[in-house]
């Protein structure tokens, strides 16, 4: 095979991918093998499947469709506070579900701000509960991610291209067709697949905003199989269906996104010459303002409700916060150790299987994975002793798909563009990673690490299955406060979590924001 020589080997990436797949399928298998004979999938399961695909599909479509104009506006405009806005816009994505749902409801609910304003005008309250509510919530969670990833796509278009297009007199539509559409075509399918996969495992959000049992998702069916029917076989089967759907979505995305990258130019500041007329500027301004309002008002609502108790929180909340910071730190390190070799291996080209392995973590039901790991660990060790490492590992696996989305396009360009020079200098393996890939990916690594830390901080995930009363994480402690009627303290603790998650994200993503500005 007349392969071009590559500066990185695929071996370690392959090993990581195989490890991830082994953990997920191993856990699934462990659950399936423990199953006694139960009933197979029934009519209600198929209804759940249909609803899940419908809501996940719509959520992915709307998130991306809305993210494109927002990202475009942010890419084209320079204004004071842009950096901060881009960073803050990412916040909903990293929030723990229950907290974010309450924030959303405070704004969009029957008694929310919007309804109150409508009430002043004599109009009926907003009907947020229903399929549209599910989609609204999922867009709230995922619009920030989609926007960031698409914005990154925009920023990876070399400044030279815009200069060339500007020189050719391209504006608006021509600019879109020449430069932006090819980028979107490459970036959007995989973002769609990732968001689709996230929404596949949605349960509490879908049920709460769906307004009733019509909004039953596969994850809820899994939950039912586990604890209502004690039917592990059906739980494993449903989880396999989830995984299958994700693999199909992932494969479809890879197929749609095939094609070449842009290459990178010299590290020039990206300057845009298009869209300087009054109309596009007004439009961009409106888009940014709307998106900011949609994403930030619920955060503001949460902040206002948490502020009064923030300083008087019980000491246990702070020690839980410390635990969460520890888990998040381990998760972040684990994530980078997994994502970098995988991204490097994928960047060599033909990494389809690796990308699929990477996306699995999203679709795996946390309940099934947690139970499976519990079954696997128990014969040789006390699972409670593994609560924190397992939580950190599962969190890292969950963030892996996002991290790959962030790292791969850039890694691909770096390998394509600078791989040959590196090879001719005999820079391979670690020296290439250390001196070329990692420095060139600094911004993306910061962004991915920020996501990992923040998501891990806010994730309840498998900790509930392994919970040890002495090592509660902050999200678990929030649930405990709510379970003890202490909704006010819970709101304060949620704000603390928001601050911590966001703080971690902000710190690590600093490079990313610098990049976003450049």
């Amino acid at each position, binding site marked *: 095979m007349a392969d071009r020589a590559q500066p990185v080997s695929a071996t370690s990436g392959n090993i990581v991918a195989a490890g991830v797949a082994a953990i997920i399928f191993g856990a699934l298998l462990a659950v399936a093998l423990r199953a006694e004979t139960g009933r197979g999938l029934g009519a209600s399961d198929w209804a759940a499947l249909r609803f899940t695909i419908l809501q996940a599909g719509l959520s992915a479509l709307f998130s991306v469709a809305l993210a494109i104009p927002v990202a475009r506006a942010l890419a084209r405009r320079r204004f004071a506070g842009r950096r901060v806005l881009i960073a803050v816009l990412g916040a909903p994505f990293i929030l723990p579900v229950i907290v974010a749902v309450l924030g959303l409801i405070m704004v969009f609910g029957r008694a929310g701000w919007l309804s109150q304003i409508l009430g002043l005008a004599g109009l009926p309250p907003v009907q947020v509960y229903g399929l549209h509510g599910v989609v609204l919530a999922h867009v709230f969670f995922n619009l920030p991610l989609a926007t960031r990833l698409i914005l990154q796509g925009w920023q990876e278009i070399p400044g030279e291209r815009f200069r060339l297009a500007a020189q050719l007199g391209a504006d608006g539509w021509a600019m879109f067709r020449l430069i932006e559409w090819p980028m979107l075509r490459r970036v959007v399918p995989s973002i769609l697949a990732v968001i689709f996969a996230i929404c596949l495992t949605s349960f509490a959000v879908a049920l709460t905003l769906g307004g009733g049992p019509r909004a039953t998702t596969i994850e809820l069916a899994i939950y039912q199989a586990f604890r209502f029917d004690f039917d592990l076989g059906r739980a494993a089967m449903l989880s396999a269906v989830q995984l299958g759907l994700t693999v199909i979505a992932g494969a479809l995305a890879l197929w749609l996104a095939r094609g070449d990258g842009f290459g990178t130019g010299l590290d020039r500041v990206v300057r845009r010459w298009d869209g300087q007329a009054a109309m596009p500027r007004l439009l961009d301004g409106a888009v940014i303002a709307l998106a900011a309002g949609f994403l930030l008002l619920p955060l503001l609502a949460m902040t206002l409700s948490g502020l009064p108790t923030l300083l008087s929180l019980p000491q246990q909340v702070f020690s839980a916060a410390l635990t969460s910071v520890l888990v998040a730190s381990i998760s972040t390190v684990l994530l980078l150790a997994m994502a970098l070799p995988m991204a490097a291996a994928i960047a060599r080209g033909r990494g389809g299987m690796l990308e699929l392995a990477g996306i699995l973590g999203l679709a795996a039901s946390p309940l099934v994975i947690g139970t499976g790991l519990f079954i696997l660990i128990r014969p040789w060790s006390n699972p409670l002793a593994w609560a924190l490492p397992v939580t950190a590992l599962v969190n890292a696996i969950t963030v892996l798909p996002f991290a790959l989305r962030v790292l791969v396009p850039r890694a691909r360009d770096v390998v394509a563009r600078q791989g040959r020079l590196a090879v001719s*200098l*005999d820079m391979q393996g670690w020296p*290439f990673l250390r001196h070329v890939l990692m420095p060139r990916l600094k911004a993306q690594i910061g962004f991915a690490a920020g996501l990992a830390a923040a998501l891990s901080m806010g994730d309840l995930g498998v900790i509930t299955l392994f919970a040890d009363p002495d090592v509660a994480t902050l999200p678990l402690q929030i649930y405990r406060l709510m379970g003890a009627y202490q909704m006010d303290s819970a709101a304060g603790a949620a704000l603390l979590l928001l601050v911590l998650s966001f703080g971690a994200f902000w710190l690590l993503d600093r490079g990313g924001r610098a990049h976003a500005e450049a």
Partner: protein
Amino acid sequence: MLKLEDCIIRNGTFGLSAHLSVPARSRVAVIGPSGAGKSTLIEAIAGFLSVETGRITWNGTDITDIHPGARPLAMLFQDDNLFPHLSVAQNVGLGIHPNLRLTASERETVDGAIERVGLAGLGNRKPSELSGGQRSRAALARVLVQRCDLLLLDEPFAALGPALRAEMLDLVADLCDETGATLLMISHAPEDARRIADQAILVAEGQAQEPQDTAALLDNPPKVLREYLG
């Protein structure tokens, strides 16, 4: 001596056959019509394209299957010869050690090379802070510290103006003399070939020929070359 024995090099659907030898310490231009396979030939020698049949030897050692980074040669590409995120000194240092762990004396070597190509004091600059000519000089400084027997140039100076290009070629010729390296350079401009290469390999019609006298070839070009030179 570099030898290509009965080589067939495939690049996609395009195939090039080459059977030739380049004497040590010589300076050889590779000329031929656009798309004839000049880059294919150079990339095969550098190891970026593998040969389908035949073998490549350097001073009698078979290098056909050796990894590009392990071949006793240095190469400059048309562009991207420097890593944009590394300083000039780091870029040059890569020629000594790809992991950039340099001893004090190696650092001195790097500084010496930077000085030799006329970039003294610019070692801390990033490539984007340099002019095109300075970037070429930085890349040549790296070639200098690589201490390789064979230097391959895939038109790295094509973007420079005629005066600057001539200056670079003279620098290359001087460096080759100083280090005793053999030079193989692709050239589109006959005057460049005449300037520093006494021998020339003609690549045309799917074949790379034995080196011949540059002046004779250009004074009396065969039909394919004549059409190209115009």
